[in-house]
């Protein structure tokens, strides 16, 4: 059974690695600043909305790219939305992938788009996993009676 101190260290090490490796950027810190006693689950709520929205978008993208005649404008519209939402929560690598994806849409490059979709799916799964881990560590700290360290 880990102590509060050990859990907090785990949390800090893990969180800082996410910023260092580019999974998250400053916008995620901005989200945390908006969380307080009156809105204690704000980050979790926003990220949950992001997960829901992203899964729909990824599904729509797969369908759009499977069509006989691909509507690249429609594909681009989905990617634009994904770029917006990932940028809003600080999912840095996903956002960057969206930028690349939009370039392929503009070129009407189907192969490029399909490769991007695969990569974006991968990046999304990674960041989802990591964020779930962050929330899990936070919960464990709170359950052990500790406070969550601030990462500035």
């Amino acid at each position, binding site marked *: 059974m880990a102590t509060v101190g050990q859990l907090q260290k785990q949390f800090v090490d893990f969180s800082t690695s996410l910023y260092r490796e580019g999974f998250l950027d400053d916008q995620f810190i*901005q989200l945390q600043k908006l969380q307080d006693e009156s809105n204690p689950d704000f980050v979790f709520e926003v990220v949950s909305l992001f997960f829901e929205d992203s899964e729909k978008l990824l599904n729509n993208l797969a369908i759009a790219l499977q069509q006989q005649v691909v509507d690249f404008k429609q594909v681009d519209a989905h990617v634009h939305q994904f*770029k917006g*939402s990932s940028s809003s929560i600080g999912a840095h690598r996903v956002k960057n992938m969206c930028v690349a994806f939009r370039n392929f849409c503009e070129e009407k490059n189907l192969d490029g788009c399909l490769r991007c979709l695969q990569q974006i799916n991968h990046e999304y799964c990674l960041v989802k996993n990591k964020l779930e881990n962050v929330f899990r560590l936070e919960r464990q700290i709170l359950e052990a009676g500790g406070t969550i360290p601030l990462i500035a």
Partner: protein
Amino acid sequence: MQFHVLAVDDSVIDRKLIERLLKTSSYQVTVVDSGVKALEYLGLVDDEIANTNTDSNPISTIKNHHEVEVNLIITDYCMPGINGYDLLRKIKESTTLKNIPVVIMSSENIPSRINNCLEQGAEEFFLKPVKQSDVNKLKPHLMRGKGKENQPNFVVNKRKPMAECLSPDRIRTKYNYI
């Protein structure tokens, strides 16, 4: 003095974000997910909108039946249907709404877009993701707006010093219910 801000954004994530940002500044917030809903909320529904609105309600064709007071409108640029620019234009063309300050948000940094919005009368243009420091810039526009709303015939002069704005204690013009 509590200010009421109307936020318009088609993204559920961005709506949550802007709502929280505005509430931390102690503003009263109403959030809608489209330009059409924004115009309906503001009580400005003309024939053009009524025709595009699929759930046609005879009451919605009456202009300005609302007595809602909005001190600032902050809207996303890219939205399906009426985009932020169109919404801005309609507000500025309305005799009853043109004095309400409007702010545009966009994820894309396109100088011509920014210029067009500012020329059309937007007070500010925020690049997304919107931050607390952006929201802090809303106060002076809200303060100025509060003084002007009671005078529908007052010409909007953005350079007018705040001291010349009217006292907010003046009795508001009431609209007649039809």
